[in-house]
């Protein structure tokens, strides 16, 4: 499953991030392989809002789909 499949309140661990550019950008926000995230909110057919540590970020659906997670 991917980040895009998370429902509100579900937690998951990021498995990999394939795109190099995205990987470095997310590292700056504190997201990387192995980060445990919680789905804070879900816009229907839209972005997924993730919470981890004290941080909240919104990821567009097209990005979220490319990031596989383990529950």
């Amino acid at each position: 499953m991917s980040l895009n499949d998370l429902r509100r309140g579900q937690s998951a661990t990021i498995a990999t991030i394939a795109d190099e550019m995205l990987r470095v950008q997310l590292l700056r926000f504190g997201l990387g392989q192995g980060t445990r995230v919680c789905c804070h909110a879900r816009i229907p057919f839209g972005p997924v809002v993730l919470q981890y540590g004290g941080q909240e970020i919104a990821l567009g659906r097209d990005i979220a789909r490319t990031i596989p997670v383990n529950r």
Partner: protein
Amino acid sequence: MGSCCEASPLNLATGRAKLVLAGNPNVGKSIFFSAWSGLYVDVSNFPGTTVEITQGRVGEDDLFDTPGVYGVSAFNDEERVARDMILDADTVINVVDATHLERDLFLTQQLIDMALPLVVALNFCDEARSRGIEVDVSALEHELGVPVIPTAAVSGSGLSEVYATVPRARVGRALPEVEAAVPELLNRLDSRADALMVLEGDAAIADRHGVEPLGERERLYTLRRQRVNAVVAAAVTRPDHGGQLRDRIGRLCLEPLTAVPILFAVLWACYQLVGIVIAGDVVGVTEVTLMQGHYEPWIRALVGAHLPAASALGQILIGEFGLLTMTVTYLFGLLLPLVLGFYIAMSILEDSGYLPRLATLVDRLMTGIGLNGRAIIPVILGFGCVQLGTITTRILGSKRERTIATAILNFVVPCSAQLGVIAAMLATVGFGLSLVYGGIILLCLALIGTALHRALPGQSTALLIDLPPMRLPRLSNVLRKTFVRTFFFMKEAWPWFAVGALGVSILQVSGGLGLWQKALAPLTEGWLKLPKEASTAFVMGLVRRDFGAAGLTQLALSPWQVVVALVTITLFVPCIASLMILFKERGWKEALAIWGGSWVVAFGVGGVLAQLVL
């Protein structure tokens, strides 16, 4: 980046020390800036870019405020500007958000790895405390190896302490891996900070030193992230419980059931402020009473005493579209209050933390037309003034997105001046036909957006946005931001508007305007099935869009004719001032394509509608 950046970009051979404020977006850097620098502030474009930089003086030193960034790199224009300013700094004052240290310390550690003398201002300490977040300042100081000063910038506490600490700025504890890798590079280039950039693969910096960029970015970022997480673990204690009011509000703004009503409430409040209070009441006073009632008769009499008003020069200076009459009235009576109003609303939304949530909420709608949620910001501003929106498309991630957003703004978004007239005319035709009008405009927006999305090469960037905590905006900060932005906008817009007005005056004096009017008449009568006087409205619409719309109110039109006329005038070309901004922002090819395309779309859609219903 162009060759302008070969040399030191800020190019200040003054011998004064350069203090640079750096930090993530919305951490309160600018509060430090304005508290320290006092009144002397200079806002300008960074050379070769469209990014604003703010510069001032503090004591014997120069002080610079940089765009908010999450790290020193080159992912976009703002980051490149911040990077160049930071590389040029003698001392960096790094402002961090105490409630958000996992994110903010990444930049801090990177600045430390650059071996820049650093002071860290730990901002929002009051808020962190009230949320139960404990930050051990001495542990943080120890871990980072640089002075850390707790502050609460909005209430002013700690500001002067940070400034007093600047002489004690230190080079902190860099990553051991950076320390190990740098010496080899320092044989070939003289700056440790630049060396880190080369190590992290920054092609532009490598090029400046004539070396090859290295591929260590991801390895160093990963190590830095681990280091930051360790620092946070050592210095920050977070409460387990959430459930703070601001967190709940933040969540409600994203929950589909509550988000939409909140969105409408916010839009309604903005409309009340800008559409009713500013565009109605304030502009009524500034434009009609002050400028047209007092200023224009005065300047006409003054200039008229020296040269006849009917002469060519008289027309150009004090005529209908005069440089000293209409231009001044428009700029100060209409544009200035509107832009002020919009920037107040914008700054409140920005400081409250609502904007990124709004961008998240509308992201799905925007991706259909090749944009992401972020593009809602220029679109909202465009409803105030299309020029304002066009300039704000700079925040979008790619050239492709800027093109699409600019086209939508200039094709379909009516500005607030025009919106008032349109609303008044729609009121006369009833709800059903108003819906028809709105539907046609939205359909055009969707079609133009989709067409450009399909036609333009490349890919749009997807939404990746940090959601800051919801905060109550501070009046002083909102006002300061508003004034700086308004000043900057007016400074950029006025020459273009003056050139436009001059052009129209020359057309009028030479008789070109009359010819145009005649040439347009068959189109309005035969194709749009409107009275021939309507062509005057379209000529006026070239100059100012509300003139165009206002010209239509004088005509006796049937309800369907009103819809046809309004659809056409809404889709009609941007006003002359917007066209000038369009030239400047998007280049002449794109500007002419949009301007020419507006003729085709406006008369095409209006005409087809007229042929169908009239």
